[in-house]
């Protein structure tokens, strides 16, 4: 059954159209990569899906229910959104930060069970050694892992990630995406990640959505979307797509000279 359905969504910022007639269907245990040049509407799309922004037209259905009709807390139990690097974060221990992910599930007091779940998540992300450190004292890569841990403690069915690897070195990039992929498969959740790195998108996403100027320009399995023609059209960059040991690699050659 379709987990998440985005139907004909249009979104304008002060009458400037950002999203134009976007339609997506997402299954359980599926990881969707959203790629596209800067300003293509990737982040706006994720924000609309999590009701942080309200689209002027169209609707988003989670398990067949319009998210507009859902209580905010109920939506938060099912969907988690991790913004692109958080701006200024209040000082808090890593443990407390991850504990915040339990907010939709509990009232005022955090129970023993919540503490256990925080510990599980910390261990899964291999950041248990940071538990009592302050979030502002750890590296950018570790912070990113902490925010993902917080979202995982939320136990969502749908995980929305905006550039989860933007602050990370290549080792952390692979570690973080491996964990997300593992959770998607293991817990049967769905994930949508906006990502700039086409090679990571090709490697981890089951399907790829290429956006350009608020439209969905191409969608499908990585090999059908990440073609030199599509990339040339959307990004204006000449590339070579290499198949190495069954994996796609996008090798940028040069920007296309605009006529």
């Amino acid at each position, binding site marked *: 059954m379709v987990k998440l359905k985005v139907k004909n969504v249009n979104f304008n910022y002060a009458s400037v159209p950002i999203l134009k007639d976007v339609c997506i269907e997402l299954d359980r245990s599926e990881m969707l990569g959203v790629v596209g040049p800067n300003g293509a509407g990737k982040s706006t799309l994720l924000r609309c899906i*999590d009701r942080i922004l309200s689209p002027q037209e169209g609707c988003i259905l989670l398990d067949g229910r319009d998210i507009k009709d859902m209580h905010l807390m109920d939506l938060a139990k099912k969907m988690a*959104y*991790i913004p692109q690097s958080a701006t*200024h974060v*209040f*000082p808090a*221990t890593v*443990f407390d930060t991850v504990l*915040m992910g339990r907010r939709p599930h509990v009232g005022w007091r955090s129970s023993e069970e919540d503490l256990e779940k925080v510990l599980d998540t910390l261990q899964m992300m291999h950041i*248990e050694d940071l538990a009592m450190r302050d979030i502002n004292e750890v590296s950018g890569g570790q912070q990113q892992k902490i925010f993902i841990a917080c979202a995982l403690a939320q136990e969502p069915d749908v995980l929305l990630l905006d550039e989860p690897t933007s602050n990370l070195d290549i080792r952390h990039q692979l570690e973080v995406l491996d964990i997300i992929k593992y959770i998607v498969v293991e817990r049967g959740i769905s994930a949508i990640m906006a990502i700039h790195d086409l090679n990571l998108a090709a490697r981890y996403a089951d399907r790829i959505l290429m956006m350009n100027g608020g439209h969905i320009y191409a969608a499908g399995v990585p090999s059908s979307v990440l073609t030199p023609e599509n990339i040339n059209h959307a990004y204006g960059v000449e590339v070579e797509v290499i198949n190495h040991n069954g994996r796609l690699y996008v090798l940028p050659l040069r920007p296309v000279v605009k006529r």
Partner: protein
Amino acid sequence: MTSSTETIPGTGKRAKIKAQYKKFIGRKIIFILFCILLIFIIAGVAATLGSFPITVAEVYTIIWQGLFQNPETTKEVVVWNLRLPRIFMAILAGAGLAIAGTMMQGILRNPLASPFTLGISASAGFGAVIAIILGAGFISGEYLVVVNAFVFSLIPTFVILGLSRYKSATPETMILAGIAMMYVFSALTQLINYFAEAEALKEAYFWMVGSLGRASWDDLLPVTIVLVVCTIPLMWKSWDVNVMGAGDERAKSLGVNVTRTRIVIMIISSLLTAGIVCFTGTIGFVGLVAPHICRMIIGGDVRFLIPASGLFGAAFLLACDLIARTIIAPIILPVGIVTALIGGPFLFFLLLRRRKEFW
């Protein structure tokens, strides 16, 4: 990643982290208990000190007897009608201002937010000065100044809320609007003061720096009600404020209605501030400094920060008033001067010796 020496991987570590976390929570509770103890000690000392000579033993006998009969002798009147209301007012005002400051700093994610910087104190001062110098106000009689100050102190909040209907209520907009309002009301106050008679000016001045000298048993009841009624919903919302510390988008994704929470907390904190300053005048610095000091000691978790900074603020104001009454006795300084003179350097000292980022 180096793992420690336990046999089953992870189990020992889990227990260790959990123990650390429990200890971390325990420290916060100990600090809160310590503040309660501190209040009792300072209040106990404050009751015995003053320009009228009464021995320590006498004071406590009088307090004990006063529980069962009305004060008659001069000594009894001094203790029951002058010192005790003043002590209780210091506790209530310190707690309320510190809690209001904690919440404002939390929802606006700004270390400078306090009842002062949001224009609440300045507008309350303007209302009071109108009443004191021009004799004009919403009601007549002995509560003219109090009611005027209360009504005026709510103006900045409503202006900020009105503004947020047209512009999005971001923390930055709210703070800038508050500061703008603070300057406008300060200027208006100075304008009136400029033309005032010397005697009225002195009274207005006393109000502007804040003092606990006018506290009476009659005033304590409304202040207590305001404090209790406002603190309960603030405590209830404390986890949401914590979540908002991670940023508005993340908070929304965690199911918190960020805009509504921010506005509701803003209104409650303003009411709390207004309910206090209308009786005491604009006592500065408690609302700014008490939350910071507590944040440095116990961390930023608002669930613990509300009781901690409330109790610390109470102890702090009580101590400042004690100093204000005794340092150059028989002259009693306005407590607002002492809070700033002690709170400022104290905050500075903590800033210098802190080991990690607290904001």
